[in-house]
């Protein structure tokens, strides 16, 4: 227990060392979460769009007329 108290006090510099580490690890975590979450959200949006609008791959083989403005 004493050892832990000594470690935690960081030679008296606890109020400088610990905020530095908490801030650093916090920012790293935030970058991970915001980036990965952002990617997942956009992937979901794209899946939704592609589900509602299946792409016709071979337009030349389709029997439907291609819409034109003439």
């Amino acid at each position, binding site marked *: 227990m004493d050892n832990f108290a000594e470690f935690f006090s*960081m030679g008296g510099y606890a109020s400088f060392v610990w905020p530095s580490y908490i801030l650093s690890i916090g920012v790293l975590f935030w970058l991970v979460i915001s980036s*990965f979450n952002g990617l997942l959200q956009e992937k979901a949006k794209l899946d939704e769009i592609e589900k509602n609008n299946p792409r016709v791959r071979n337009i030349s083989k389709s029997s439907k007329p291609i819409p034109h403005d003439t």
Partner: protein
Amino acid sequence: MSNLHQFANPTRFLKMSSTLLPWVGALTGFLLVYGFWQALFVSPPDYQMGEAVRIMYVHVPSAYMGMLVYGSMAFASAIALIWKHPLADIAAKCSAPIGVAFTGLALATGMLWGQPMWGTFWVWDARLTSVLLLFFIYLGYIGLWLTIEDTSRASRAAAILALVGSVNLPIIHYSVEWWNTLHQPASLLRLDGPTIDPGMLPALLSLIVGYTTFYITILLWRMQKELIVRKIRALQILRSNQ
């Protein structure tokens, strides 16, 4: 005006980056865990500043990354301007938030280190001032992307800012040599070798490399996201034209 053929190339990038990501991510995890363990539990206290030296292990990697990311951003911007490669453009744009976060961390941890060591959390010496300038240039760069609606105009303006601002990088690095600064001189990147206690090197080096692979991981995720956003936009334009 984006046309769909631009996305033929990005499909290859999406595939390559998805293959690379788990490896880079795992390497990052290992390096950061090892690095933080070394930093907090194994590395020795400094004979002058005691345990406060542990701030160095989060301050120095952040500062390096603030500069490395900016350098990458400027390099990608040059490629985007000269060859108009769409991936270069996206790499630059996606790097900026990562770089501004690292630079902010460098400033904040520097202040937390300066207060007990120097008795002040800030001085307007050449090193601190030029890094603060770097922080503002990043913000300006991000601001250009956010405020200019047309993608190609935003890309051009941002690229020019990135390139003009890159003159700040050698100023930051050499500031401690060219001027009389409170910030200490280089103890790692020196012509006659590092002057740092070897017991501190495992923590410092693994966190520097770990922060670098971390940047690559986050960048790949953000580039993938940006490619998907642009694809969605193109599809919506196509749909509204039918």
